């Protein structure tokens, strides 16, 4: 019987390197002849730049070369070029200088003479939508689809006038869809909330800045990067460097956090790579913390109006949501659309209208952050649910259970379905773990100036994909090698999702090796490590590859030992005749035979439906042993929902605006639990990040000159250990998803959103104030408790 690996704890192979400091992140590599590159970043939000004179800089001892936008491929708006003389955000790289040391490079940059012609800029989408308002790009402020050019999209002054101060002006949207009859449903509703809201932009703040090392060797471009993903990086890098896929070598063994911002190749990766090509030296581009805030991307903020109707029983009958999304000067992300999907799934409204309007701004370029869209809207919608519960006299957990989706849910305009949904189970489990029935009695309890608030939050993310490739090799050393195209973003999914291959092939974990982190190790094509998809997506690919290997083991055994492949079974690192287990071949023997046989057995021949990245990877594994390679062709229908719930008890000091999170519990539906320790870790870590999202994460811009106030960690204020509870209670429903061979789904994203929502729900509960805004800072609570007006306007952003 095969060893059961799924669902058990184990120690991923890279943990030891992390605790000893031997794990190599990009900046830790040293290459002979390596020089340093530093960038010149635009000091204003939008400018047309003329490089006047670089001679003094280039004449300096130790300066090796300069790279300007002339040296790199263009990427027309709203693409984000590697270097540009028309920067459209603060900190956008204009040029770079290479030198023997960083000190010299920094000095040389000061000697470059440029002129900046300041351009009108926009930091607030509503400003940009106002008649005559500034457009972030020369071409406009909106693009309908990625393939189109930007246009200038304005609303009418009447749209603004009708809305007034408190409500969202709602002009012509960029996207709209309808299900059912919302207007009729609102007329019939027992309770309707209709209010504007703001969710602030925030930055990812991964602890490792996105440094890149690059050099060229024998025509191949070597890139060492900080990325969440591995194989996903390959096509983008090849395209960025304008070389064939097979000429890119990408190394990313460790990544110091990404949270969405390092999922795909980013423009600054091209700077040392093109510089290296130009000056023929290995180039290291170290990114500083301040630079990371500018060029590291950010989560888009929302300004919006949310109208929700409930019937007497608490069922959500109608949702009408309008979201204006603050993009950077680039394509942005689909957060606003994903937010609509979350509303449609989590609250199952019978009638829904969604309108979305993404607008370019001259702020850091937008890239998905953990729970893109879904987490932002959870922060607004969950407190709405509480208000409805209170108004309708329904328990706050119960109103969520009433609206939770079942397995057969059909949601949104796309009539989407899900692979499984255990949100209700998570609510029941979580509220019991948290002891909601008793805790809720403490709601509003005062102790001097302090008051207790009880909160609950839910969040969702579509967390799984299909159709990617798996690759395993069994080698003459008798070991199973799982080739993982998955990046190492700190979730250990590269390892836990690999275990299904070992389990399928009856191979002990001790005899299993994971090949990863370097494209020369033969790494197959899989989706990026974003969107919590890896668990679902790559258990399928690894399962497919393991089965391909299993088939070949059986075929080889039948060839040598007689009978047909079907007569054989694979287990205990052997393939044997079912009717006579004495007729057996070890993995080592089979691997040796596979090499002798060649062809499909050792990877010289492979299915044509593999992705080009996998085909390029085959060159690295051909002839090393028995090769199992396959595309995941298992059926999949519907979205794979990761669902999470959080429960918080906080104590707010009404005099200081500060609160302490006394207790936090979170339970999730992630299918079957694959790796209990890493699941717990994800729930807790996402919880911490959510607590920051709800309270202190900041991204502040001065509207007069577009300067950024938050370029240091003490200014952006990610939660410290003293801002979060000392312990957190976590749990999982642990029921299998039918479309995963291991029953698993990812869950890393919504565990953040449910925490943020639970904290905001608790703040509203304690203070009796509907902030309709994320984050809620101490100053807002102080003002609210003192009965003073807030210092911001209702729809104001960047504060």
């Amino acid at each position, binding site marked *: 019987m095969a060893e059961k690996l799924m669902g058990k704890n184990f120690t991923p192979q890279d943990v030891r390197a992390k605790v000893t400091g031997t794990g190599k992140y990009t900046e830790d590599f040293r290459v002979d002849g390596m020089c340093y590159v530093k960038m010149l970043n635009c000091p204003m939000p939008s400018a047309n730049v003329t490089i006047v004179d670089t001679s003094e800089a280039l004449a300096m001892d130790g300066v090796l070369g300069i790279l300007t936008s002339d040296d790199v491929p263009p990427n027309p708006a709203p693409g984000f070029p590697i270097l540009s003389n028309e920067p459209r955000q603060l900190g956008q790289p204009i040029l770079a200088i290479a030198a023997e040391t960083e000190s010299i490079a920094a000095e040389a940059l000061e000697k470059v003479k440029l002129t900046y012609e300041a351009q009108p800029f926009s930091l607030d989408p509503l400003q940009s939508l106002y008649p*005559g308002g500034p457009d972030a790009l020369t071409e406009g402020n909106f693009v309908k689809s990625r393939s189109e050019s930007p246009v200038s999209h304005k609303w009418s002054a009447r749209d603004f006038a009708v809305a007034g101060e408190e409500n969202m002006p709602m002009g012509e949207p960029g996207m709209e869809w309808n299900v059912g009859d919302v207007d009729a449903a609102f007329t019939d509703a027992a309770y309707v909330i209709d209010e504007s809201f703001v969710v602030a932009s925030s930055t990812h703040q991964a602890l490792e800045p996105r440094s890149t090392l690059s050099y060229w060797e024998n025509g191949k471009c070597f890139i060492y990067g900080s990325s969440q993903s591995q194989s996903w990086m390959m096509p983008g890098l090849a395209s960025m460097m304008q070389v064939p896929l097979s000429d890119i070598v990408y190394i990313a063994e460790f990544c110091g956090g990404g949270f969405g911002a390092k999922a795909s190749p980013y423009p600054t990766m091209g700077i040392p790579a093109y510089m290296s090509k130009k000056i023929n030296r290995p180039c290291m581009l170290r990114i500083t913390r301040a630079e990371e805030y500018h060029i590291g991307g950010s989560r888009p903020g929302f300004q919006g109006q949310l109208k929700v109707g409930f019937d007497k029983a608490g069922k959500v009958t109608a949702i009408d949501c309008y979201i204006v999304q603050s993009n950077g000067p680039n394509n942005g992300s689909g957060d606003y659309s994903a937010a609509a999907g979350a509303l449609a799934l989590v609250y199952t409204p019978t009638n829904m209208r969604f309108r979305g309007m993404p607008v370019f701004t001259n702020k850091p370029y937008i890239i998905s952050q953990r729970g893109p869209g879904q987490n932002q809207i959870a922060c607004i919608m969950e407190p709405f649910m509480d208000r409805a519960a209170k108004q309708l006299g329904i328990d706050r957990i119960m109103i969520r259970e009433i609206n939770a989706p079942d397995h057969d849910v059909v949601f949104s305009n796309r009539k989407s379905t899900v692979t499984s949904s255990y949100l209700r189970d998570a609510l029941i489990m979580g509220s019991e773990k948290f002891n909601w029935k008793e805790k809720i009695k403490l709601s509003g309890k005062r102790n001097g100036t302090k008051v207790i608030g009880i909160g609950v939050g839910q969040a969702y993310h579509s967390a799984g994909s299909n159709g990617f490739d798996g690759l395993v090799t069994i080698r003459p050393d008798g070991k199973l090698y799982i080739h993982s195209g998955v990046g190492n973003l700190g979730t250990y999914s590269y390892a836990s999702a690999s275990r299904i291959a070992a389990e399928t092939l009856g191979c002990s974990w001790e005899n299993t090796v994971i090949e990863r982190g370097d494209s020369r190790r033969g790494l197959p094509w899989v989706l990026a490590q974003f969107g919590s998809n890896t668990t679902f997506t790559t258990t399928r690919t690894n399962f497919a590859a393991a089965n391909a290997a299993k088939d070949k083991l059986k075929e080889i055994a039948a060839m040598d030992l007689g009978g047909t492949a079907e007569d054989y079974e694979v287990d205990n690192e052997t393939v044997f005749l079912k009717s006579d287990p004495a007729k057996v071949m070890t993995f080592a023997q089979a691997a040796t035979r596979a090499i002798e046989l060649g062809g499909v057995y050792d990877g010289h021949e492979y299915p044509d439906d593999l992705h080009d990245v996998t085909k390029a990877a085959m060159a690295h594994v051909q002839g090393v042993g028995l090769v199992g390679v396959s595309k995941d062709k298992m059926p999949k229908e519907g979205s794979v929902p990761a669902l999470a719930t959080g429960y918080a008890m906080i104590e707010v000091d009404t005099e200081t605006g500060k609160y302490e999170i006394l207790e936090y519990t979170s339970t999730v539906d992630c299918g079957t639990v694959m790796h209990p320790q890493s699941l717990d870790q994800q729930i807790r870590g996402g919880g911490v990040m959510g607590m920051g999202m709800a309270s202190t994460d900041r991204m502040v811009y001065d*509207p007069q000159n577009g300067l950024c106030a938050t370029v240091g960690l003490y200014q952006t204020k990610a939660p410290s250990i003293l801002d979060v509870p000392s312990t957190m209670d976590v749990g999982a429903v642990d029921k299998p998803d039918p479309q995963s061979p291991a029953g698993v789904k990812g869950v890393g994203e919504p565990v953040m959103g449910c925490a943020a929502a639970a904290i905001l729900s608790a703040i509203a509960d304690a203070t009796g104030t509907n902030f309709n805004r994320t984050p809620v800072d101490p100053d807002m609570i102080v003002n609210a408790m003192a009965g003073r007006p807030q*210092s911001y306007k209702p729809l104001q952003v960047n504060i």
Partner: protein
Amino acid sequence: MQKKFSSDRFDPLSTVRDALSRRHFIKGVIAAGTVAGAAGLVTGCSDSSDSSGGAAGSVERLITVNVNGKARPVDVMPNETLAHTLRNKLGLTGTKIGCDRGSCGACTVMIDGVTNNSCSVLTHTLRGANVITVEGVGGANGELHPIQQAMIEELAPQCGFCTPGQVVSGVSLLQRNPNPTREEVRYALAGNLCRCGAYNNYVDAIVKAAGSA
């Protein structure tokens, strides 16, 4: 008393009208940058480079740094931080630079047993002090420190970038307080930011290590 509150009308056009004056403002900013550069030239401090060395009266560049029990002679610039010396001159890349501003603690090392952000210490100010980095907290033969072992068992690190700093802060704590409470561990780690949010696990590991050490 209050100059402007939310009762003020939202007027996007005001910013549009200000576009011209804003443009003047920005030119001011850039001019200021130029002046700062020019001032640097006048005082001569931007003439220097890594090859220039200190002028008369300044520190000797060749010094001995005591790191992880070894005396290491090294050529150190006057403006060089300990993090730079460790990572780029002594090959000790376990010490990470997350912010270079003392705001994250990824570069935490012990100097004479006390935790410091090595990015915010000039190497020349060590004056013979003993530096312990994450590479030096374990046994002489590569044995893990109990905290490291416990962090593996508790699966404490996520991305791992802050981990060396967490380890060093933990080791320093146990040296002065072998049996800390959970609260004491939290306060000892208060200068070590973990964006993955693995705080609970780090505390679990250090409490566990304290029990077993």
